[in-house]
Each structure stands twice: as structure tokens, then as C-alpha cells.
């Protein structure tokens, strides 16, 4: 089994590139095949890359406070384009101002993101969750295929 591919990038008109490079290095070291699209990535560019690479997850970063607008409709777009099962994470300074942590997570979960990470969260934990979410997805698909075949 080769390393699972994950697509990484900073969404919207956001040019913050330092954290993006750190995440690329970190997730690569954790054994993922990171397809890093860099900064200023549109929803469709994330999805295009995920389709071509057969990626198991999309990791969306947003640092400049407009994440909510940029991420709106992301899950729907994935479904429309045939990525129903893809693991979808969002992380960063996702909204402007002092919005409580729970509210931010709730909003992004409602948009269809599987997990939401804020700056204070532990990266090690994120990598562990990512591996387990991808594994669970694969088991689900394998089971689905077995049922379909019988």
C-alpha cells in the first residue's frame, strides 16, 4: 500500500505561505503523499488535483479571516464532481474576531468539513486523526464494494 495522497493548499485570495510550507513538511514526514497547491487556491483547483491524484483527503487552510465565505459549498462541489467520500479538513484562522471555538467548529462542520482545526490545536493529533479517517473511509469503501459484488 503506497502512501495516501492528500491535497493541501491555502484557499481563496489568501497569500500566507509560511504555514503552508510547514504543513507540507510535517504531513510528508508523517508518511502522507502531500500534493501541495500552495497559496490562492480555488475550490475547483483543490478538487481537480484530488481527482487526478486519486487523493484520500483535502486539507484546506485559511489564515486571513475570509475562510467562511471561501469554504462555503465546498462539500457540495466535491459531491457534484464525484468525490462523495473524500475526507475534508479545514484549519487556520478560519473567522475574523473573537468567535468562540465551538461556534467556528460547528459552522465548518455544517458546511461538510469532517474536522476543523484552530491555531492552538496539536498537529501530531491532526496527523493521527487524518490517518484514521482515511483508513475508515477505505474500509467503508472496501465493504461497499464487497456488498456490491455479491
Amino acid at each position, binding site marked *: 500500500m*503506497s502512501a495516501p*495522497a492528500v491535497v493541501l493548499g491555502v484557499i481563496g*485570495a*489568501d*497569500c500566507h505561505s509560511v504555514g503552508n510550507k510547514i504543513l507540507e513538511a510535517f504531513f510528508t514526514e508523517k508518511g502522507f*503523499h502531500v*500534493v501541495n*497547491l500552495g*497559496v*490562492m487556491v*480555488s475550490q*475547483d*483547483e483543490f478538487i*481537480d*488535483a484530488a*481527482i*487526478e*491524484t*486519486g*487523493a484520500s483527503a483535502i486539507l484546506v487552510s485559511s489564515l*486571513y*479571516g*475570509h475562510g467562511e465565505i471561501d469554504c462555503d459549498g465546498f462539500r457540495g462541489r466535491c459531491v457534484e464532481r*464525484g468525490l462523495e467520500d473524500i475526507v475534508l479538513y479545514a484549519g487556520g484562522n478560519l473567522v475574523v474576531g473573537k468567535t468562540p471555538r465551538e461556534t467556528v467548529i460547528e459552522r465548518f462542520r455544517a458546511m461538510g468539513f469532517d474536522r476543523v482545526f484552530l491555531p492552538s490545536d496539536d498537529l501530531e493529533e491532526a496527523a493521527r486523526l487524518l490517518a484514521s479517517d482515511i483508513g475508515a473511509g477505505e474500509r467503508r469503501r472496501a465493504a461497499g464494494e464487497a456488498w456490491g459484488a455479491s
Partner: protein
Amino acid sequence: MGRVLSVDIGSTWTKAAVLELAGDASSVIEQAEVPTTQEDLSCGFAMLLRRLLHIPEDAPLERIRPGIPVYVSSSAKGGLSIAAIGVVPELTVSVARLAAASAGGRITAHYAYGLSSAQVLELEAAHPDIVLLCGGTDGGNESYVLRNARALASSSLEAVILYAGNAALADQVRSLLGGKRLVVTENAMPGVGVLNIEPARAAIRTVFLERIVGGRGLEKVRGLCAAEPKPTPLAVYELVQAVGGGDWLLIDMGGATTDVYSHCPAFRGEEGTVLRGLEEPVLMRTVEGDLGMRVSAEAAAEIGRGYIRRRLAEENVPADCFASWVKRAAATPTVLSCSGEEGVCDGILAEACLYHALMRHAGTVEETWTPGGKVRVQRGKDLRLVRWIAASGGWLARCASPAPLLRALAAARGDSGGRSLLPAAPSILADSRHIVPVLGNVAAIHPQGAAALAERILEIPDGG
């Protein structure tokens, strides 16, 4: 290297030259051209051989012993038709089209994601010479690629299928398409945005020889050649490569297509500019199958109608006069414009082809405001610093003035409102001696000689 004879069998004219290839001291000894003999291409070829090698007029082709190496390119038979298949339009479909165009092909159709049964029927009806099947990065997408391979396997297509997709699926594709004429090569896009089109290009060239060279007398020509014949657009591509240098374009405008070749970096990494999408290669060819002076005249007149309307008004030429010229040009591809008004119409048609071919080749830039300030988002290739444009092929080569090309370029720049990354201040060089394809033909075997001759004949400035 010494003396060689180079022949280009075009769709209208067969052109030839005896060249002395000696590095920078290379020279053109003698040149000639005759109308292409459509029914048997070897007739025109033999005529030129006899003329340039000073052989008696009645010597049959099979008795001619040229005594010097002969190189041949051909764009007769409408060139090589390629259907390109990929997964995502902006990624592997674009890459497949890029590979097909740079190998000298004419893209007759392109498809994204999974082929539908209607699309397979359409593909069967189009009878392409090659189906270029791309899709998936290495270890990437499997579902669409395998689905498309299966669809091709169960089709009645007789085309060569060239697989340049996800390398991890190569064995599966081989077994699925075992019943077809299959060629498997390296992935044209092994990673997102990573281009690797050379292996696919080389494979397309091999297929050209097998498929296209047969028929219409070309096999007789082949027997006299020092190397395998090549498609004319590939020969021109190799000439552009041999000349190399930086920042120039070559436009080859014919009856059926308008081809643009560029040699410059796609993205210059200016402060405040970000590149989105694929970074296109330094040497790039685009083929516009709907922009041409004869066979494609009607399509070009339709696409260019806005520009044409403006120019007709400026020149005081009635629209129905233009329409009847277009009809005549499309019906009789060998017609040359003669009368004053016809000449003006032909010129306006040429400008419209140039306007759109340049606009399509060039990338774009949009200004976007971000919380961090203004950012310029570039897509496609930046041609702004292109210093000169070599103009080749029929009308353009004959055109005595750079004005039409510069006018079309200025209009395209103006109409895009600065969005289009078109050349800002290029000089125009005309291929008035119709030498480009003939030189292209020897560019791969003697790049230095071909480049030196091109620079001298097109009067390419030093350091270009």
C-alpha cells in the same frame, strides 16, 4: 555534414532546397517549389529532385540516385489527427492537448472524465489516427482512466491508442487494450502541474511514420530518404527549438490551421504576481483548426466576425463582398486573391485568424484585491516580452508588410483591456523565401546549421 536536399510536401505547395550545412557558414544553394500533386505526392517530389539535382526531365523516380542525403517532411493528407482524452479539463486534458499539438498533430476532439457511449460513437465516426489516452498522476486517479480504457477496448476504433496516463495502471491498460494497436509511454503528467510530454511526443512521431507515410505515393518517397519523413509541424517545432534563444514567436498560417510556436518562459515570477494552473513549457505550439485561410475560412470568418466587421467598415468593403470571397476561398483552396477588393478581403480574413490565434496562445492576467493588497493572477503564458515574430506560411510569407500582423496584434491587445499577455512591442520577420519548413526538416540532424540559416534568412537579430 555537407550538402543535403530538403523537401517539404505541403497541402498546397511542395517546396525544396539544396542546403550546404556547415555550422554558422551554412548556405542555401538552390531553391524551388511546385504545386503539390495530390493524387500521387511522389510526382511533385520527383519534379523537384530532377530540377534541383539537374537530372533529365524524363528520369523516373525509381531510377534517381540523389547522391546527397534527402530529408522530407509532409503535412499533406491533412496532417495527423489526434483525439485527446484526459480526466480534469484544466489538468490532464490540457496536457494531452499540449503533447498532441507539440508533436505536430491536429486535435480533432478532446474529452474529459469518463467517456459516454455517445462520445465513443463520436470518436469512432471521427476516425482519428491516434487516440491519446491520458489521465491520473502516477499512483493517482484510477476510476476514470480504467473506465475510458474499457470504453476504447469495446469500441470499433482502429486508431493507434497511445497511453500516457497513470503509470500504476499501465499493466491493466495493456491487458484491457490488448486487442488494439496500443503504445504505452511515460505519464505526460506524473504529478499535479508536472509536465512530461517528451515521451508522448516521441511516440506520436513513430506512429506518424507507420500510419501516415503509407499511401498517396509517400512510400516511394520514403525509399529515397536519409531519415524517416516527419510531419511538417514537428519539423517547424524542431527549427524553433534549434534557434532557441529567448522570447520569440513563429506563426505558420495555412489554409486549414493557424499554428503558433512560442519560445519564452511562461512565467517570470514578478513581484506581486502569482501563477495559477499549469506552467506551460518554454517551447510551446498551439494549433487552431478553426482558423485558416482556405479550408477553414468559413469557420474563421464566423469566429472573427467582430473584428472583421470593424475592419470592413474601415476599408469601406461591403460585407456581402467579404462573404462571397470566403465562400470562394473555402471551395477552392488553391485560389489566390487577385483583384483589389478580393485582396483586401483576404487580408482581413488573415488578420482575423492572427487576432484569435495570438489571443488563444497568450495567457491572461487579472488583478485581484486581497487583504494583503493587490495581487495579479496569471494564467497561461506571458508573451509580453516577445521581441520578434517570424511570419510563415502562404499569405503571411507573401505579405510584404508587417502592418496586418501588427494591426491584428494591437487590436487583440486593446480588446482584452490589457488582460491578455500578448507581445508588447515585437518586430516582424517574414519568411518571404518560404524556407521555414525546409529548414525545419534538417533542424534535428543539424541544429546549428538550420538555426544559422534561419537567423540569416529571416534576419533574426544577433542574440535573439
